[in-house]
């Protein structure tokens, strides 16, 4: 995973959750700009009308977090939800364990505890979820997770375990290396498999 390159010394993780509407990013970044801060990384998504934004921001001088929160949140607005959270940013320690990127997909009848069941198995095996998507349509639920699977696991065994857990809940589960999705959707072929010179 690429690490963040902070522009200034004092870095924070900023999280905004709000009713989605035009202008949220503009108002948040205006506040950061006023405090002479820099956005080092950001990611935003909208889910069913709700906006969420996560940012790594850095500043040339130490800030009072309360000031920063007030600045970003602006004056209270009774008509729309707007929550901001802030914590100091520390570079995460790089794990020594090597991993491969896989995608898990699960399709089946919506019922309680499905995500729990899969995520518990993944957690027990030290598998990190880096992106998660879930959607309920009618009685059907689809779950897609992008995973970092430590190289120490035997993929065939892991697939069999997950498929078995899926079957118990009426789910079709597949664990596939992400390159098959890259190869079939993106213009560049995944480059890790270099062909050997022709002998």
């Amino acid at each position, binding site marked *: 995973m690429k690490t963040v390159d902070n522009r200034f010394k004092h870095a924070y993780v900023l999280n905004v959750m709000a009713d989605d509407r035009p202008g949220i990013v503009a108002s948040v970044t205006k506040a950061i700009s006023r405090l002479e801060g820099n956005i080092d990384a950001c990611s935003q998504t909208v889910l069913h009308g709700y906006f969420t934004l996560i940012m790594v921001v850095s500043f040339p001088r130490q800030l009072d977090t309360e000031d920063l929160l007030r600045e970003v949140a602006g004056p209270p607005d009774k008509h729309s939800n707007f929550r901001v959270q802030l914590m100091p940013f520390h570079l995460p320690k790089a794990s020594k364990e090597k991993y491969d990127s896989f*995608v898990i*997909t699960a399709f089946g009848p919506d019922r309680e505890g499905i995500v729990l069941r899969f995520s518990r198995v993944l957690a027990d095996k030290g598998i990190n979820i*880096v*992106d998660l*998507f879930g959607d309920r349509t009618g009685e059907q639920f*689809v779950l*897609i997770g*992008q995973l970092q699977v430590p190289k120490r696991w035997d*993929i*065939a065994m892991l*697939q069999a375990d997950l498929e078995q857990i899926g079957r118990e809940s009426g789910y079709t589960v*597949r*664990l*596939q*290396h*992400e*390159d*098959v*999705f*890259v*190869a*079939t*959707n*993106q213009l560049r*072929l*995944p480059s890790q*498999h*270099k*062909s*050997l*010179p*022709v*002998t």
Partner: protein
Amino acid sequence: MLRTDEILSTIQMLHAEHLDVRTVTMGVNIQDCASADVEAMCRKLRHKLTSRASRLVETCDRVGGKYGLKVTNKRLAISPVAHLLSGHDLNAAVAVAKTLDQAAAEVRVDLIGGFSALVHKGISSGDKVVIDALPAVLSQTQRLCASVNAASRRAGINMDAVRLLGEQIKAIAEATADRQGFGAAKLVVFANIPEDNPFMAGAYLGDGEPEVVINVGVSGPGVVSSALKRRLELEPNLTLGELAEEIKLTAFRVTRAGELIGREVATELGIPFGIVDLSLAPTPEIGDSVGEILQLLGLDAIGAPGSTAAVALLNDAVKKGGAFASSSVGGLSGAFIPVSEDAALADAATRGHLTLEKLEAMTSVCSVGLDMIAIPGDTPAETIAAIMADELAIGVINNKTTAVRLIPVPGKKAGDRVDFGGLFGSAPVMPVRNPGASSRFVRFGGRIPAPIQSLSN
């Protein structure tokens, strides 16, 4: 990060629409197995094939499993056996063939191709042994496939070879009469045979190829027809140009899947990756048919006027998508129209919509030729040779590969049904018009000269 819609569309393609890697074919050069002593030659062959291919099947299964993409068949393609058989007799040919068959069984590949001869300009002593041995070999082996190149753009058509092959095809069918002449389904006669084709029965390892190489054949008529169906449900008024675009896009994705698997299998086995052959190769399964694509393109009866144009559109779009997806596209790369192996084509033949002559016309704009066609067992050998000559002429003049795989089913007449089982499917015995009326033409023999390359109208 991948997008959800990308993940979902790949899942759909892999698991609901029959996308598979149809074959991973390992090419092996066997010329260093030559020997004056037949036993020594067989020993060397067995050793070379079983050591080179020992890990092929398990590697394909493991790599396929990792990506959730099934490698349906694992196969071997060897350099032409004719090179080994110069100076040997028919018994040696049978011994070699049985050795190849056993070696294939030992490494658990389903087919091995390369009982082959290249005779487009003339027949060498080794080639003659191969052709003479075909009935014995194809009736006494299970996994071995044969091919003969009898014509090329630069040499023209070797009509002596074509005449001989007409007789041998009948002899092969007779020798396997207990299996409805099925031996003939394991022989393909080519014009401009590709040297890196991974698809059977015509796979062999050509000159100029590496010592050992991995070639991959990807299919996916089901993926193409599903993509067309989806688009047409949303927008029923699409033009043919827009439909071609959809086919091209799908071909791109299918090719990518094949190249991914092929390269990783080659890397794991420590041998070079050769090509990915994107061909729409149907299976008798419903939803895995080239005929269904033609129906989606608006042909209510396959074989009706417009069929040749529709196949041309399909074949060209497949090639364009494949060529953009990979710089290593080779082999046949196009749409196959094997009658018995495609439920919709077999059905059209049964209804009388699709005739031998229309199939011939369609093959002038697609891969690969008159393929898996059952004809009456009493069709004269010269007529079979003449059908071949017609098909090879299309390849020679149009500078493309064409091929013939006809099965004259012993004891059956036009309209009877044959069932070859499994992937080979079932089909009606198709009528051959004017049987016997080409005999004088074929008996002239000699060579039809290579065509002029200019004045191309």
